[in-house]
């Protein structure tokens, strides 16, 4: 049984469990599934700076921070105790594409040629951590939600604005992965 759990889970298993998060949060406390709001709560708690957007009763949103801390703990526990010892299986065509950018290390879930401590103070680190993170934080708040709030919760509740947002997430991602990143990789 443990061997089975340690193998990478099927997409349908993951999809069902992620989908069930929606009713789970609704049933235990009438909460709407959404993760990017946690970034806003961090701003409201730590650096509100008298900005109206961060002046609200964040104590009522504490559940959301408990939830994301849970995600972090879950990531830790799954890695420590349920980790798959084999290298990640990635589509051969993707490997060929990424090899052109010098990404060849598949020993971890993330490419260590990018996401390693040595890259923090390099141009590569600046682009992948600082610029990338900024776009995620700025974009999700501007859009009013991320993959969880719009693509999963919003689409589940048949919201047209969420469908528009989700299409834009995908359009931005296709542009970034296919046109922007090949140019950026040339810099390193």
């Amino acid at each position, binding site marked *: 049984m443990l061997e089975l759990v340690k193998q990478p889970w099927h997409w349908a298993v993951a999809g069902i469990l992620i989908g069930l998060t929606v*009713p789970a949060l609704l*049933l235990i406390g009438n909460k709407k599934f959404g993760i990017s*709001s946690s970034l806003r709560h961090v701003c409201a708690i730590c650096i509100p700076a008298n900005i109206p957007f961060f002046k609200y009763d964040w104590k009522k949103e504490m559940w959301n921070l408990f*939830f994301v*801390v*849970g995600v972090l703990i879950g990531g830790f526990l799954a890695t420590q105790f349920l980790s798959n010892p084999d290298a990640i299986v990635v589509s051969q065509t993707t490997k060929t594409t990424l090899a052109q950018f010098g990404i060849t290390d598949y020993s971890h879930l993330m490419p260590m040629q990018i996401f390693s401590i040595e890259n923090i103070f390099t141009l590569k680190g600046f682009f992948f951590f600082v610029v990338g993170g900024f776009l995620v934080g700025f974009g999700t708040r501007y859009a009013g939600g991320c993959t969880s709030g719009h693509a999963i919760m919003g689409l589940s509740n048949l919201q047209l604005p969420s469908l528009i947002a989700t299409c834009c997430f995908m359009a931005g991602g296709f542009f970034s992965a296919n046109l922007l*990143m090949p140019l950026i990789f040339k810099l390193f």
Partner: protein
Amino acid sequence: MESKKSIEVRHQDAMCTNESKKSENGFLSNIKYLIVGIVFGTVFVKAEIISWFRIQEMFHLQSFFMYGVIGTAVVVGMLSIWVIKRFNVKTFSGEKISFENKTFNKGQIYGGLIFGIGWAITGACPGPLFAQIGSGFLVVFITFLSAVAGTWIYGKYREQLPH
């Protein structure tokens, strides 16, 4: 004073505008959300959704995996909400479950495109960001701090941005 439009926009920011009437402060009442989060984070790691490689596969249309995950999640979520609405299911503490409609604004387009660009670069939407840090990729903490900064800059300049 807030204009009506400003309030409308704020409602869309995934704020919990219908927070539970019952007293929900305190560590113990929030622990259940921590547990749901732990399950969720485990799924992220075990299905390798936190992997930057999976996101590249998705945006190069070279694997069905992420489409399968998101598609299945949406179908399960949709059925769940349909059942809750159809049978007027209450929360475990007996409260009515409420839903609000989102209103469209151009932020969903501009912000959506900007987030999409960042999603492909970092290989993470906000959920996997937390799971990546927990999984031991400590540099992602910098990505997280930068995402908080991005959120803050949006908050500071939102009145000047087209919505």
